């Protein structure tokens, strides 16, 4: 109340303007009003102010009355006009409500009638609607089809290939997780740069041991081996895994094609997929006891766009290791001049060697395709077909014809045969083989110094004395009757009354030649059987389909039958001259021998035959040797 000073602290303060207005209008609360009344009665100033305020109010009301429009004029008309307007409004409202209600009721009745008439169709429609909701909203979608997720992820990859003039750069982080100890270790990063203009890829490996780069043009053999060995730093338990990955030509770029290759030879068809939050989790278990030691391959794919996110390779329960490859970035960038130069096709190996920053790091194998040992590879169906084709033309029996698994995944049949006819026969037989196969078969005159031929693919051929080593072909055996230990006995056995001495000698030569030939063939079949076992060892054929394994078994059985038949034939021939009953000797027959035992026996019988039926400087004890030979033959013949 700025305009009215208080008189004294003992006197109640004057009313404020707002209080005065409320007092004037009777709008004060009761207690406040009574106090205000007492004050006003005793305060001339406030009474005076009340008077002024009342005058102001009166003047305002009077003036306002003059300013207001004349509302009384035509008041009746206005009211009537409003009545009509209200009636119209009321009618429209009722009509609108009625029509809305009627329309809804009519539609509902029609719907009920339709449902009643076509109950099955209505039910089917409702079900279809529910299905559509479930399909398009993922309401209940926790289980998914692994194949469909893989296909969609592949579509994603195709859509995101680098367009012309660009390269894509994919960075993958590699971790090893030990599920036994819970140790989680980051091992390194591999970056793949894909070119849009050429099939060339550039790889950069960054690990604790340093970093190095490789430019690769198509041939991926050995690449995974080199990169993973560098990143994983050579743990012994990693070897079979890396070997398997390399063999499958899997690359750590988390691509779908690579994943398909990874699980192609897992020896199981089991697969499961589920949606776990933002990712689809695809689980591909490997066959129990898989040679790689891998128990499961797991791929995570983003739900939102089906981009492959990470890949885990889990080893068996004993190792309990997880190799996790996580795609940490995928970018596309212009194909810069440097990049274009890097990816120029000619002589990429030189470029890659220039990029290597650590000389101690493993290097890629030579660009030339090289043969691989049996111990480092898995047998393929094509290898079985080659073996079968060679077996068909007896090229497995002592001929220097070998099957080499090559570093680029192809097969090479290389060898040396006596003449072009024989070569043509082998080539003709190999034409039935599918897949990448190269045939290099030489005749002696085509060889310069023998460097054209690879060494046999495994140690077996080096350790075991091959069938040609020291062997004397039957046709070339010198059968000088004068020095052959059993000559007299055979001559006596074959001599017939009336026959001339020369004729008998010829029969002795034929008899001896036949025995030597049988012995030689027996040895060759045993050698082929052993070679087959080495070539298709249980470790190598783990991933083969049953049909291929049956094919191998058939070849094996064939050799065994030949060995048994030839040994029996020899035993019968020799029993005649040794005067020993076959049945008695057969009692010594041992049980079924394996290929090693068979080979030993075959070698022994071959040596014995050669010592008894060919010329020899040191005459053996004919009776003892013959007895031993027959025993060996009986054992083989069983």
């Amino acid at each position: 109340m700025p305009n009215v000073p208080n008189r004294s602290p003992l006197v109640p303060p004057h009313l404020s303007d707002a209080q005065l207005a409320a007092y004037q209008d009777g709008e004060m609360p009761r207690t406040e009003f009574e106090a205000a009344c007492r004050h006003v009665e005793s305060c001339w100033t406030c009474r005076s102010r009340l008077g002024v305020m009342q005058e102001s109010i009166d003047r305002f009301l009077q003036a306002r009355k003059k300013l207001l429009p004349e509302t009384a004029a035509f008041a009746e008309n206005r009211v009537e006009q409003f009545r009509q307007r209200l009636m119209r409004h009321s009618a429209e409202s009722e009509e609108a409500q009625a029509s809305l209600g009627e329309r809804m009721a009519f539609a509902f009745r029609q719907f009920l009638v339709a449902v009643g008439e076509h109950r099955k169709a209505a039910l089917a429609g409702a079900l279809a609607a529910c299905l559509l909701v479930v399909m398009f909203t993922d309401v209940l979608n926790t289980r998914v089809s692994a194949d469909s997720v893989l296909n969609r992820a592949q579509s994603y990859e195709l859509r995101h290939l680098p367009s012309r003039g660009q390269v894509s750069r994919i960075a993958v982080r590699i971790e090893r997780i030990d599920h036994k100890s819970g140790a989680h270790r980051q091992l390194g990063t591999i970056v793949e740069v894909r070119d849009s203009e050429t099939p060339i890829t550039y790889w950069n490996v960054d690990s604790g041991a340093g970093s190095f780069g490789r430019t690769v043009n198509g041939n991926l053999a050995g690449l995974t081996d080199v990169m993973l060995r560098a990143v994983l730093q050579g743990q012994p338990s990693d070897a079979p895994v890396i070997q398997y990955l390399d063999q499958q030509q899997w690359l750590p770029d988390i691509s779908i094609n690579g994943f398909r290759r990874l699980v192609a030879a897992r020896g199981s068809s089991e697969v499961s997929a589920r949606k776990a939050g933002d990712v689809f989790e695809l689980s591909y278990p490997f066959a129990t006891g898989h040679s790689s030691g891998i128990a499961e391959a797991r791929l995570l794919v983003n739900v939102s766009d089906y981009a492959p996110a990470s890949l885990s390779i889990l080893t068996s329960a004993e190792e309990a290791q997880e190799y996790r490859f996580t795609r940490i970035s995928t970018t596309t960038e212009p194909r810069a001049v440097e990049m274009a130069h890097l990816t120029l096709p000619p002589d990429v190996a030189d470029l890659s060697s220039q990029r290597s920053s650590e000389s101690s790091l493993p290097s890629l194998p030579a660009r030339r395709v090289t043969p691989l040992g049996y111990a480092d590879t898995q047998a393929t169906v094509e290898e079985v077909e080659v073996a079968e084709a060679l077996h068909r033309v007896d090229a497995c029996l002592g001929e220097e014809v070998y099957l080499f698994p090559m570093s680029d995944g192809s097969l090479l049949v290389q060898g040396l045969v006596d003449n072009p006819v024989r070569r043509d026969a082998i080539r003709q037989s190999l034409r039935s083989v599918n897949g990448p196969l190269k045939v290099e078969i030489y005749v002696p005159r085509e060889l310069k110094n023998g460097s054209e031929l690879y060494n046999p693919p495994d140690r077996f051929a080096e350790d075991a004395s091959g069938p040609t080593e020291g062997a004397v072909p039957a046709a070339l055996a010198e059968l000088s009757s004068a020095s052959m230990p059993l000559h007299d006995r055979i001559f006596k056995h074959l001599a017939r009354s009336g026959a001339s001495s020369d004729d008998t000698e010829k029969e002795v030569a034929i008899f001896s030649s036949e025995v030597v030939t049988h012995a030689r063939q027996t040895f060759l079949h045993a050698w082929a059987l052993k070679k087959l076992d080495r070539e298709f060892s249980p470790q190598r054929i783990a991933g083969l389909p049953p049909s291929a394994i049956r094919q191998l078994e058939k070849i094996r059985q064939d050799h065994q039958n030949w060995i048994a038949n030839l040994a029996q034939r020899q035993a019968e021939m020799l029993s005649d001259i040794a005067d020993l009953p076959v049945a008695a000797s057969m009692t010594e027959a041992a049980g079924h021998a394996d290929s090693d035992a068979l080979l030993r026996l075959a070698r022994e019988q071959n040596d014995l035959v050669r010592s008894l039926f060919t010329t020899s400087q040191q005459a053996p004890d004919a009776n003892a040797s013959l007895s031993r030979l027959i025993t060996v033959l009986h054992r083989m013949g069983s």
Partner: protein
Amino acid sequence: MDQENTLKLNQVFGMEQAESPRRSEPLEETVVGLYATMRPSLLGYAYQIVGSTGEAEDLVQIAFLKLFDQLSRKAQILNVRSWLYRVIHNLAIDHIRRKGIHEVAVAEWLAHRSLQETTRTAEDDLIQQQRIAQSLEVLNERERYCLTLRAEGLSYQEIGEVLGISHKAVSVYLSRGLKKFEVRDAKRA
């Protein structure tokens, strides 16, 4: 229908309608009766905001149509008078905002009235009217609305409901408005 609504209306007014002869009337007639009774004061208030008799008439009728709709839907309205003033106030404010005449409404109204009255008003009355008009111009919106509503006979409570302000604020706006009016008037005098 509408027996219930009629009863409520009677309670709200608490006046002569308490023993209403229109107890059994349809709602339309009840609303028309209310319109006839309240039209002058509501029209004055609306006119003061929009500055046009025709537009003010229309706004008042619209407010009653809304009242009819509310009562038809059995909505409970505790104080029909303050409800109507509030609806009219909001309609009028919306109207002048739509027309972009928010600030000039009063001036137009005053100018319009002055011209109308010029030919038939004595010189003294004209001078007094101009003084009042000029005094009203210095009032701000809230003060003007409060004074006008109070002049229409609304209680502080009802004014507060119409304008969405407290009882205390109403007394403050009223006193400030009267003070300005008083000072201006005194200076002119």
